[in-house]
């Protein structure tokens, strides 16, 4: 099975990965081999089979709606590369009008 450089570029964009042309080619080749192997699943007759997304017979799990302790603001911010005024700081998101 082939996967075009364009589709790899698109997938990389969706996954927020910046890849060089050399990397795109490298991954396209490897993904093609993996997808070809995966294609053997087509041979399995799955008509009328329910998908399994979870192995345990759990439906909804509820707990009491009560308050408890949570992490402090300084705990939450201690691992960020940049913060200001108790907030995570990132480059400008909204354009100036």
């Amino acid at each position, binding site marked *: 099975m082939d*996967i075009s450089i364009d*589709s*790899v570029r698109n*997938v*990389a964009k*969706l*996954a*927020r*990965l*910046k*890849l060089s042309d050399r*990397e795109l080619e490298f*991954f396209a080749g*490897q*993904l093609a*081999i*993996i*997808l070809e*192997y*995966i*294609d*053997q*699943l*087509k*041979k*399995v007759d*799955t008509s009328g*089979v*329910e*998908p*399994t*997304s*979870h*192995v*345990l017979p*759990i439906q909804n*799990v509820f*707990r009491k709606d009560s308050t408890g302790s949570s*992490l402090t603001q300084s*705990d*939450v911010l*201690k*691992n*960020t*590369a*940049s913060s200001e005024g108790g907030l*995570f700081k*990132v*480059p*400008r*998101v909204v354009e100036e009008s």
Partner: protein
Amino acid sequence: MGLNQRTALDLIESVKRGKINSSDIIKDVLKRIKDVDSKINAFAHLNSAEDLFKNAEGKKSGRLAGIPVALKDNLCENDRLTTCSSKILSGFKPPYSATVVKKLEDEGAIILGKTNMDEFAFGSSCETSCYGTTRNPWDTKRIPGGSSGGSAAAVAADEAVMALGSDTGGSIRQPAALCGVVGMKPTYGRVSRYGLIAFASSLDQIGPITKDVSDCALLLSVISGHDESDSTSADMPVPDYTDFLGSEIRGMRAGVPKEYFVEGSDPEVEKSVRKAIETFRGMGVEIVELDLPHTKYAVGTYYIIASAEASSNLSRFDGVQYGHRSSSSKDIIDLYSATRSEGFGDEAKRRIMLGAYVLSSGYYDAYYLKASKVRTKIKEDFDNAFKKCDVILTPTSPTPAFKAGEKMNDPLNMYLSDVYTIPANLAGIPAVSVPCGFTKSGLPIGLQIIAQAFREDNIIKAAHAFEVTAKCNNRKPDLG
């Protein structure tokens, strides 16, 4: 014999009788790490000797009182480096501890540090770590298996008394087999995943890596149980698994699936596992032939489901809240992309892209939904099999430890090294790897014992009886 070479149960007995204390154990463990870890590279982050000895002072009670335990580098420990052996989490010190870590500390264990792993647990050889490859203690030219390779190598080389790993497709059992130690993946939901940095949430499970089956039973008893912080953890009572040690297994039925004895397996591995099956027969176990017809689709199914879940789980690593942040970004999207491209290694990028591809519009039904249905068929295979037997016996890995570099440029071939371990993850059932022999060149071989969901008791009974009878784990690697 150094204290570091002894099992936890044995050490706990000596501590109780006042013959030794925790500091003595830590002293021997640290000396061993100093002597051999330059050859093995099992540890990614080691806690300071000062901290360890200070910790040992206070820890006198509990089921693991004073026992040093190593953690895989994806288990959060409050205010201690936890990095998934990835550049993208460099410097990350979690603001909380995983539930398993709390449980260990509550029972008096001393956390030694974090062991090396394949980046984000993506791999079967420990070669994708940003800290370099861990080496197999039995032959340092070879890999220890993965992804919990550091934990398995540390226990095999006596650099830790016991360790925790995580297993998504074989990441506890395969390195345990390749390093000649005991490693168990419990039933999905048996152990809380709270604080385990997620790879594939419907498959991940934390489990013990130990020198023998008795220690496995002990450590499993400590870490199991329901946890409000993980809604997928099972609300079921936890037995004391050490109660099952020494049980009579005569009359137990063991299934042998023919799909696990096919071409492609190493002949020495097959011979050793066949011999183990005869050992069980000799102990009065009834051997039953089995069919698990969808086994050959397990690897394909797994790489769709696991990669899809991974691509979703790893979207949180964007440089904003923790870990590496690119310094060369002009806007927010560029910050994400540049951070992720700099921070993730090739295997992580490959899996993220594979996952994004199988989930993307137009491919979802053909790949993800199809795989979820085949997963049902694989689970049904096991449901049918367990009508005829109590445990299933197979090789853990098709080959013994391979040479470093051998499969690094061939991802599909690397994925196939988990062919015998993946089905248990897809079905959510427990499985252990126990040593069952050595190749002529002295590399360990592992026997896998699989049981029904929440029947770890059957695994412990069978594995312990085998260990006592076959006596396969009485060799130690020679590290000079």
